[in-house]
């Protein structure tokens, strides 16, 4: 029995008809272009202007497009490494911010939000200038560094929220039962914040995998990621191939986001 958790029972009434129509219109406006894109990735005709029948052959040709596959490999490499690094740094930052008192704690805490506020193009230019001034060659490494820079804040904020929501003095309880600080972290703190870490990592991965603007400024030769590749393919017009690869990216991102929202909302993962 949980007297503190009050479940509000309220009959859900559908809104008036005009409100539902309005909502439908808004969603159509938002999602019709995407639906058209998905539809035309199955178009037999090379032109986007006419429907020539259903085919999945564009998806097959993607696999044989070597430069496209190289871009996909780059994107996955960048996203995986950037996620790994930013998750570790972000988690440690979140722990420091919520467990220790130090000078400038508030400032550092607020700075974590900055990359979310700064316009991407500003961030891109700033990073480019920074790399040049520091004498860092633009390559896949500079892209990874740039991605870490903008995703670390998301991880910090997500994990910190999770830490703040931990009920009771579980860490003291662990120490009381003889767990060293290391054991306390790995046996109690870490399992409790793992859903937060996972959700931060997924967010970082999604952001990195989809990023165009910052990558555009910081990528060197041989560091073409999938979004950059798709952009360059557009020079020859929006082909069904572009539609197909975009559809795959879309499906992939939607899956990641679905996973993320599950982690965020699952009452069991909150472990009250």
């Amino acid at each position, binding site marked *: *029995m949980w007297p503190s958790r009050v479940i509000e029972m309220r009959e859900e009434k559908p809104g008036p008809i005009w409100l539902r129509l309005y909502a439908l219109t808004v969603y159509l406006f938002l999602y019709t272009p995407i639906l058209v894109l998905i539809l035309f990735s199955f178009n037999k005709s090379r032109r986007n202007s006419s429907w020539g029948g259903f085919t999945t052959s564009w998806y097959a040709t993607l696999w044989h497009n070597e430069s496209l596959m190289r871009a996909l490999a780059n994107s996955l490499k960048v996203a995986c490494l950037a996620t790994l690094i930013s998750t570790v740094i972000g988690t440690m930052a979140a722990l420091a911010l919520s467990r220790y008192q130090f000078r400038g704690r508030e400032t550092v805490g607020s700075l974590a939000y900055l990359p979310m506020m700064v316009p991407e193009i500003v961030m891109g230019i700033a990073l480019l200038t920074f790399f040049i001034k520091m004498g860092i060659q633009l390559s896949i490494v500079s892209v990874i560094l740039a991605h870490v820079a903008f995703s670390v804040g998301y991880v910090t904020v997500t994990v910190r929220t999770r830490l703040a929501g931990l*009920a*009771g*003095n*579980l860490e*003291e*309880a*662990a*120490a*009381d*039962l*003889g*767990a*060293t*600080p290391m*054991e*306390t972290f790995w*046996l*109690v703190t870490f*399992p*409790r914040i793992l859903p937060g870490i996972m959700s931060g990592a997924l967010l970082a991965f999604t952001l990195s995998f989809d990023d165009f603007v910052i990558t555009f400024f910081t990528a060197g030769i041989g560091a073409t990621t999938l979004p950059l590749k798709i952009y360059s393919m557009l020079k020859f017009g929006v082909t069904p191939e572009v539609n197909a690869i975009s559809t795959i990216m879309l499906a992939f991102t939607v899956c990641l986001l679905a996973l993320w929202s599950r982690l965020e909302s699952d009452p069991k993962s909150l*472990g*009250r």
Partner: protein
Amino acid sequence: MDPYAVELLRVSKSYKSYQALFGIDLQIRKGEFFSLLGPSGCGKTTTLRLIAGFEEPSSGEVCIDGKPVAGLPAYRRNVNTVFQSYSLFPHLSIFENVAFGLRRSKVAEHEITRRVGEALAMVQLSEKSRGRTTELSGGQQQRVALARALVNQPAVLLLDEPMAALDSKLRKEMRSELKRLQKSLGITFVLVTHDQEEALTLSDRLAVMNQGRVEQVCEPREVYERPASRFVAEFIGTANFLPVKVLEVSNGRTRVEGEEGQFWVVSRAGFGVGDSAELSLRPERMWLGKESDPLHNSLQGVVSETIFMGPVTRYLVRLANGHLLLTEKQNLEEEAFQTGDSVCVHWDADSGALLPR
């Protein structure tokens, strides 16, 4: 002599903006049920945290089992705590919660199974061991917390207001269960509570704390009948206070004089002829009569209010000087007094207690 289970020597604790403890001394004997009783903010929880090792004293010394524990972190101390919020690990099963301490001290697997089984049987939760802590009621969580601490056979078990979150019926059940456990295990229990009834019924001895100081350490009966200060007398039960002056000390009796007259009271160390004092009188130790009785202390007055409370009735008696005296009388078959009746209030010499003023 046997060392104390816990000993605090002139322990002070101050934080940035305030001082929580002012050089307190405490000796907790082995195997006793000891309570730290006081209102919130009196320093009782801070004292507990210093013993557990969550905090270090600013000055003074804490000894567990006769050995100073300064600098020894919580995870190296042979004490376990039952927290107010229970603090069970929600990601572990009930069995693993209880096994947590044993696993840290590298106890063999079959030994763990046996001891956890025993501990859960002790708190009547054997059939739940594979379940999750989140599926348990408040009282059951409380019992898991107890098992989790006791399974380690600590030298001292610390209990931080363990029953504050339970409803009153469950609290009474837990109380007798706690007492039973402590008696059968013989482990030293240190209970922090603000509930005087809890402290009086459970403790072998208790310390009453106020504003970072220990006011009195003694057995429950003594703390009630011979409170060391007005604070203690008022915190534990109800009392009347008469300002008096000591006239004579002889044969274990002291004669005092107040505005209302002269009374005999049991002598108390530290009170000599000419000293100012306060006479504390418990309402239920006084009785009402129609005529004055020279064998007892007595005072004339008029009943100004009667309060019926079921088993007892309270009488407020207005004395000649206008002061009110609260008395309590069991509702037996005999005649009750009415508002406006002239009465005599009586009490025995050993029913009063002298307090410093």
